[in-house]
């Protein structure tokens, strides 16, 4: 206790100043406590956001400091929205989002439901299941390319062991049809535990007496599931969808390590595409407009979704 930074700060402060601080009004303390955080957020979030908006109307390139910067109005936005290649990456992102959310919610909820059967040792097993999501996606994603090697990879071997297909006859990350699924599989492996934990919190928040009452009414287990468990769990499921949606929309590290967006541009999610525009092609102005479009999209979708979620909660 005596060695907390606060204490040290307090000890190091000259008495007169200390007296002043101690005597500060609540209001002043509130501001002193909040300001550093606000300042940091302004400096690293708001100011950059405004800068990005400004850049998005220019032809600025960060790798060409000597070139004159011109304001070109909405031209960047126009170019992005009419670019058919960008719509393809949006499609790839949509595919990835839909299926990862689908599998994560399905498996996550099933696991939570099973864990909530409170079998012996469920606590430890839950922790073990959670492990993948605690680890560095880039490092783990990189290693998955090894597991996906045709022939020598563990994944192909496992599939071959289960189905009898020749393990060198298919390649998860190099094949046009399989590559989109290869990233869905790894992402589901990694992030299902997150959905599971949210679902578990939901299940545990349902009070026992409701089931007891249903039991007295002789409602079947099946009916209890549909009339009690699912409706009461719904807000949590929706939350899980929201968070897993946002996380997967931001996805960069795992996928870039796995496929790098290939083959061709089959798995080039928007983050990867944006990274290429911003930090490989260095079309800074263009990429800024791209970032703003993404931000508005996510923010808009999330706001609508949160409204819907609140309605469900109120019911």
């Amino acid at each position, binding site marked *: *206790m005596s060695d907390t930074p*606060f*204490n040290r700060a307090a000890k190091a402060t000259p008495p007169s100043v200390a007296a002043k601080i101690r005597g*500060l009004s*609540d*209001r002043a*303390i*509130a*501001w002193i*406590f*909040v300001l*550093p*955080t606000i300042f940091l*957020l302004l*400096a*690293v979030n708001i100011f*950059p956001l405004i*800068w*990005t908006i400004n850049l998005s109307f220019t032809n600025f390139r*960060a790798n060409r400091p000597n070139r004159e910067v011109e304001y070109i109005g909405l031209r960047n936005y126009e170019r992005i929205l009419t670019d058919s290649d960008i719509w393809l990456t949006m499609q790839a992102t949509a595919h990835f989002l839909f299926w990862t959310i689908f599998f994560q919610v399905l498996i996550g909820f099933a*696991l939570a439901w*099973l*864990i909530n059967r409170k*079998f*012996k040792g*469920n606590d430890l*097993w839950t*922790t073990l*299941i959670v492990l*993948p999501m*605690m*680890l*560095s*996606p880039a*490092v*783990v994603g990189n*290693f998955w390319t*090894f*597991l996906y*090697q045709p022939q020598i990879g*563990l994944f192909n*071997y496992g599939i071959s062991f289960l189905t009898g297909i020749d393990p060198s006859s298919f390649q998860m990350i190099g094949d046009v049809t399989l590559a989109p699924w290869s990233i869905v599989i790894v992402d589901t492996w990694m992030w299902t535990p997150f959905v599971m*934990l*949210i679902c*578990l919190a939901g299940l545990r928040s349902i009070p*026992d007496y409701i*089931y*007891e009452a249903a039991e007295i009414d002789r409602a079947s287990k099946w009916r209890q599931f549909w009339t009690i468990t699912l409706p009461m769990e719904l807000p*949590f499921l929706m939350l899980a969808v929201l968070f897993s949606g*946002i996380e997967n929309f*931001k996805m*960069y*590290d795992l996928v870039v390590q796995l496929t790098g967006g290939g083959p061709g541009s089959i798995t080039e999610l*928007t*983050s990867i595409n944006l990274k290429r525009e*911003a*930090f490989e092609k260095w079309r800074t102005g263009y990429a800024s407009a791209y*970032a703003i479009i993404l*931000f508005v999209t996510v*923010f808009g979708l999330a706001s609508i979704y949160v409204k819907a979620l609140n309605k469900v909660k109120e019911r």
Partner: protein
Amino acid sequence: MSSYSITEPSAPQKWIAGTLVVAYAVITLLPLVWILTTGFKSPVDAIAYPPKVLFEPSLEGYVNLFTTRTRVSPEQLEALPPPETWYEEVVRNRDMVIAGPSRYGERFLNSVIIGFGSTFLSVFLGTLAAYAFSRFKVPLKDDLLFFILSTRMMPPIAVAIPIFLMFRTLGLSDTHLGMILLYTAVNISLAVWLLKGFIDEIPREYEEAALIDGYTRFQAFYKVVLPQAATGIASTAIFCLIFSWNEYAFAVLLTSGTAQTAPPFIPTIIGVGGQDWPAVAAGATLFLVPVMVFTILLRKHLLRGITFGAVRK
């Protein structure tokens, strides 16, 4: 509680549920087990077909992880004095000599410095802000809180564009300070959010009693509230640490050497001619195991924390 409760699942139900969960856990842990074991395989065993479950353990991966090596001709090898250390011998067996240490140690250290530095800062600032949000009337409080959280919705790459320009102007590119500040800014939203939850749970009566006893607000904060929030602060710190530890996108864009952390570095570990999977696995193992151990040891606080931020709203 009472085993007669009608909501308690029956024994066979528990047994089936348990089996299914354990089966899932085993499958889901296989890739991790594979990382751990591949680090101890020889390069030949690592790419053997069918994949080897039993193998003769070898430290070659770890030796390769920490050294850079050059190939020499057999004649040159003959001319060298006998190897002085066991790891030199391992390298010589592959017709190579050690040219120097690899960069792995430095990168790992960078991860430690930046991880702990930013964790300390975000928890320090976050605790102050969370206390203020929890106890005082702050203008536009709800908007601020929502805004703080919404900053996490952006893909890191989008945020990175202006940050890159800012860092370049301020000379913060590829510096420890720059990365610490950046990770702090990213973490602080979650830290405030989590900590506010923990502090909200501490009854106000404690502080009020202290205030009546003649404590100032400030004293009440660090003598009464802080000790009560210690568990919450600790688990928040672990979240911040894990985030900074694992972060890749900013690190790859804003660091190139001096301050580069391990995640962008590990995938670029290659051997002499060809990807050296045992070395990659060894590097990954050393990097991942601390997090695994943390997770298992601190599971109670961690698991609560993960859902806490999400479920509270």
